[in-house]
């Protein structure tokens, strides 16, 4: 296997007596769409938060393109190419979708200690933002304050903003959560269109979506990876069936 783009080794995280992440190792080669599944409370979001730097891990290493990023703050990891979307979207309620995406582009266009000039009037950034907004299908609603957007639209915006960071690795924390059937299908086809262009780690409960999209799947139970493999491996895995999939229809 070639050098993994995102390489997590021996990651551990405890909250008092609770082991949230248990000696977890995970490697994502460039271009892979990797799904992380597991029952509620398995520590999926905790893992994402450690990867992006919102939570400090106890031990282990997180390497991005061969460089250790495990002790950098959130913003610094983003600038190095690790972006995320949120399970519960974080929004700028007074800004529009266009503003939000423009801000994401501005973040990677050098420092923002510029006190003159009209930020919203920057042609280059504005045009680039329009592309990401178009990509997620929000063009019609681009100038509506985010506070007035519906849940599904916020999910779309969250993805557009994450893509606007031009990440090398994108962590998607339940992109389908709370979406209706039609919206889910749109999100799946959107993610499918991104596949190969950006390396993705998707945390998701929607098994149908996971089995459609994923190149490989990792199964997390009580903070520990119990299985890893392609869709067929995971479907066939006995341990996974009892621990997780057996609980519902596959």
């Amino acid at each position: 296997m070639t050098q993994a783009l995102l390489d997590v080794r021996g990651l551990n995280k405890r909250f008092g007596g609770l082991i949230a992440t248990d000696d977890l190792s995970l490697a994502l080669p460039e271009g892979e769409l990797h799904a992380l599944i597991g029952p509620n409370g398995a520590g999926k979001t905790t893992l994402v938060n450690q990867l992006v730097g919102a939570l400090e891990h106890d031990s282990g290493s997180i390497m991005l393109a061969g460089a250790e990023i495990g002790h950098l703050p959130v913003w610094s990891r983003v600038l190095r190419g690790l972006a995320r979307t949120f399970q519960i979207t974080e929004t700028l309620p007074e800004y529009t979708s266009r503003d939000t995406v423009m801000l994401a582009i501005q973040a990677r266009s050098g420092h923002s200690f510029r006190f003159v000039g009209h930020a919203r009037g920057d042609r280059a950034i504005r045009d680039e933002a329009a592309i990401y907004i178009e990509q997620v299908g929000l063009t019609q609603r681009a100038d509506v304050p985010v506070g007035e957007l519906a849940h599904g639209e916020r999910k779309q915006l969250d993805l557009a903003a994450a893509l606007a960071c031009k990440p090398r690795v994108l962590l998607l924390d339940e992109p389908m959560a709370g979406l209706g059937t039609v919206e889910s299908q749109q999100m799946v086809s959107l993610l499918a269109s991104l596949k190969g262009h950006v390396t993705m780690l998707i945390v998701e409960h929607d098994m149908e979506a996971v089995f459609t999209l994923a190149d490989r799947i990792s199964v997390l139970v009580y903070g520990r990876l119990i299985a890893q493999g392609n869709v067929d491996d995971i479907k066939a895995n006995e341990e996974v069936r009892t621990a997780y999939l057996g609980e519902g229809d596959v």
Partner: protein
Amino acid sequence: MTEQPVDFAATKPVNSPTGASAPVKVTLGLVVAALLVALPYLARGLGHDSFVGLVTQVLIYGIAALSLNLILGYGGMISFGHGAFFGVGAYVVAILYFHHADDSAFLDLVPGTDNLLITLPAAMLVAGILAAVIGAFSLRTGGVQFIMITLAFAQMLYFLFVSLKTYGGDDGLMMRRRDVLPFVDIWGDQTFYYLCLVAAAFWLGLTALIVRSRFGFVLSGLRQNEKRLAAFGFSPYPYKLAAFVIAGMGAGLAGALMVNYLRFASPDMLHWTKSGELMMMVILGGTGTLFGPLLGAAAIVLLEAVLTAQTEHWQLPLGIILLAVVLFSRGGLAALFRQLGLGRP
């Protein structure tokens, strides 16, 4: 003031709530600017010379409120210690004057001066450095802790100046005359008024520029959701600190003008009640609006003048009026004007 009408149209976001049309705003801005320029002559014509002094105070407090609004309104940093920068700016000028009159030197190092071209920048510089120090500590916290730490720093400085017997202690420090400007005599109230008008227009223009810039775009975003901006790759701390320093410098400028106007610096200028008064101006005028702080400063200074003439218990009616405006306008005077179709966001 000539750039003000331009800003009316230029800073308006594409999708702003519908208010008055651009020509109405430009006209309104021109009328207000013209009135302010003509004010000394109007006041004299109407036999109310003292009105010029009152509006001078409005302009000075307006600068302080504008500067506070940058961090409170746009940046979402609820600083309860803004009076510290106002007071320190005043003391820098007064102390420099004291040593000038005394022919001595501050700490036996810095000679005094009464040249406004030196004292104003010096006041802004010292206030800015102080803001950098206070900001560096307090911005590591947030929420209620931030309010309390900024308050604590301001009160520490208040007690420092109370205890400085050399500079008058709690009696304050008098200036026999105002500072001087080369070629312009600001000893007269009318020229001093124009100086303050220029300073207020300058700070308003500066604020308008900052707010629409990339920096302002980030600052307003940080108020709305810091976590969101961190996930874009912005490190919140340096941006907040820079805004805090700019705000401190603005308050320092206001303090330097106020001590020249009153020819008196006192520890009361750093007291928490002064910080509270500045906050009231911002909130009453409309937080996060460009012109709100000026409206708020005007409302409070003028109301105070009117009410103190009526009753010595003037604070009660003032409080009731403040409550009424804040409760019923939902966004201060700026919102009230907007609802009347006059103002701008």
